């Protein structure tokens, strides 16, 4: 479907470097990155708003690298929708059809169908100034979808929408993808990636640093940057060693972790998912291989329940549900046991 091959583009002090992505038809690909990581620039290159310095863009086995923007048949929805303020909702949606010189009747019919699909029929005669973020997003989607694009590019489509409307738009996007539309969605929000993507690419400083299914990318991040995106806070700089045939890792603070697999490098960065660590205020959980006694430094509410910060020679961040928190009956400065299985430790490839 879409293939980016060795794409490079210099933009002032910033550069997209050797971008290679292969997106099969029907995929929902989420490109995740912070602002300034180059994700919007990459979308603009695919759409044809800018030209790459080198590399090739292929769409359905056709090299479109130098193809005119008007002939690419790629739909792009901008971050703040870029709705034309001098036109009504109808005028906005019909814009591309006017460009193709369709008859007034044909335009009216097509606009009506797409407006019904996106639940904006009642807005057609209104100017766009007083529309809500969610309504504007639907108008922008309708305006793009009416061109029947082969590929839909979305630049931060949920960034300017009220939380209550986000689920609505997400549902619409999922439906579009299920109908077979290939989507490339750019965002800085990990939650969007997890809830929408069939595949994720993480972009940082103009490089794609990891690509794969959300499950793999966020459970086995290649480096600290990707791990942080998944909300992981437990990072340990460790030295690996073999003791009686078992691999272990020693932290800077001399804590030693038992590990599950073989063949570790001499040293590296190890992560533990916040929810992989168990916390107990009596005896440690026997099923796990690593047990440490520590003192609770801070307890903060989190999206999933509570985040407990435990000092056990190293600082551990542990996510627990609200029910578990109530059962544990813990507070600041409580003495607790933390434990995690040997398999929980993931060694990262680099340190971004």
């Amino acid at each position: 479907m879409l293939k980016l091959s060795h794409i490079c583009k210099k933009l002032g002090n910033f550069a997209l470097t050797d971008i290679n992505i292969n997106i099969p038809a029907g995929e929902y690909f989420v490109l995740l990155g912070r602002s300034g990581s180059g994700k919007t620039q990459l979308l603009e290159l695919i759409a044809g708003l800018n030209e790459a310095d080198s590399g090739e863009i292929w769409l359905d086995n056709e090299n479109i690298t130098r193809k005119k923007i008007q002939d690419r048949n790629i739909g792009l929805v901008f971050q703040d929708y870029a709705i034309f303020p001098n036109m009504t909702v109808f005028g906005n949606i019909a814009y591309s059809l006017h460009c193709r010189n369709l008859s007034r009747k044909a335009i009216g019919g097509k606009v009506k169908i797409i407006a019904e699909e996106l639940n904006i029929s009642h807005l057609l005669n209104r100017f766009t100034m007083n529309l809500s973020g969610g309504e504007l997003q639907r108008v922008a989607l309708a305006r793009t979808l009416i061109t029947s694009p082969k590929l839909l590019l979305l630049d931060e489509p949920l960034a300017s929408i009220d939380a209550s409307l986000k689920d609505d738009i997400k549902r619409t996007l999922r439906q579009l993808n299920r109908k077979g539309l290939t989507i490339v969605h750019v965002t800085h929000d990990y939650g969007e990636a997890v809830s929408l993507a069939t595949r994720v690419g993480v972009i940082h400083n103009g490089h794609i640093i990891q690509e794969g299914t959300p499950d793999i990318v966020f459970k086995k991040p290649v480096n600290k940057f990707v791990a942080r995106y998944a909300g992981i806070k437990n990072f340990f700089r460790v030295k690996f060693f073999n003791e009686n045939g078992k691999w272990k890792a020693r932290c800077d603070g001399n804590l030693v972790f038992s590990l599950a697999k073989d063949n570790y490098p001499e040293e590296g960065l190890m992560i533990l998912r916040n929810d992989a660590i168990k916390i107990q205020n009596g005896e440690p959980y026997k099923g796990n291989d690593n047990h440490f006694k520590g003192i609770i430094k801070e307890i903060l509410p989190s999206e999933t329940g509570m985040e407990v910060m435990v000092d056990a020679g190293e600082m551990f961040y542990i996510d627990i549900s609200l029910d578990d928190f109530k059962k544990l009956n813990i507070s600041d400065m409580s003495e607790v046991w933390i434990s995690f299985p040997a398999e929980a430790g993931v060694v990262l490839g680099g340190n971004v």
Partner: protein
Amino acid sequence: MIKYNPFNWILLILSSLVLMFILAPLAGMFLHTGGHELLETVNDKEVQRSIWLTLWVSFAATFLFAFGAIPLSWLLARRNFPFKNIVQGIIDLPIVLPHTAAGIAILGFISRDGFLGKTADLLGLSLINNPAGIALAMAFVSIPFMINSARDGFAAVPERLEKAALSLGASRSRVFFSISLPLAWRSIMTGFIMMFARGMSEFGAVVIVAYHPMIAPVLIYERFSSFGLKYARPASVLFIVIALAVFILLRLISVRKKETHLLPDAET
């Protein structure tokens, strides 16, 4: 509510002085002009012809030069090219030139020895002492107002709207006429009015290119130098009233156009 501290008092006094400076001479002129004299001037065919000439020639000059000025404004707002700053400087040049010097330059250009003059001569047309020559002199001194205002208008149109239109399959020219031009319209109209008003009030450049037919500022000068202040006053008052009426009318027409809110381009 404004607090009456010394700073506010100083601001109030200085601002009032500036406003008085503008209004007092005009008010004096109006007060010294009797109704009878004014009525006589209104019925004076020479004055009528001169005011009409001033209005239509300035309007025609503004209208015709807009066709070149608007694309140039778009280029200045949207494209980067070598020596862009120099081009911008050239556009502003007429504002800083003494207007009589501008008149001399225009005269050289449109006289029979000049390029434009020779070309017009071939068509049996003399640009000197002709409305066409007056229009050129008016346009020369007033075109920076149109270009600068339109340029600011185009620059304020978010580029992503133009990009969105391109991605929807619009040609560059369609994007210009359906997005850039309508969204910059208010600034273009403001520039149009400013150029028209500036052209209408021009004396220095026009008097060198064409003493006759007389535009209103030249007529007022002629009445003053031949008959004195008393005779120049009613023509001045009449011209000011008509110029103000036209100015207000054009302003109202441009303001009545639906206001559109433009958000600046988002950072990426």
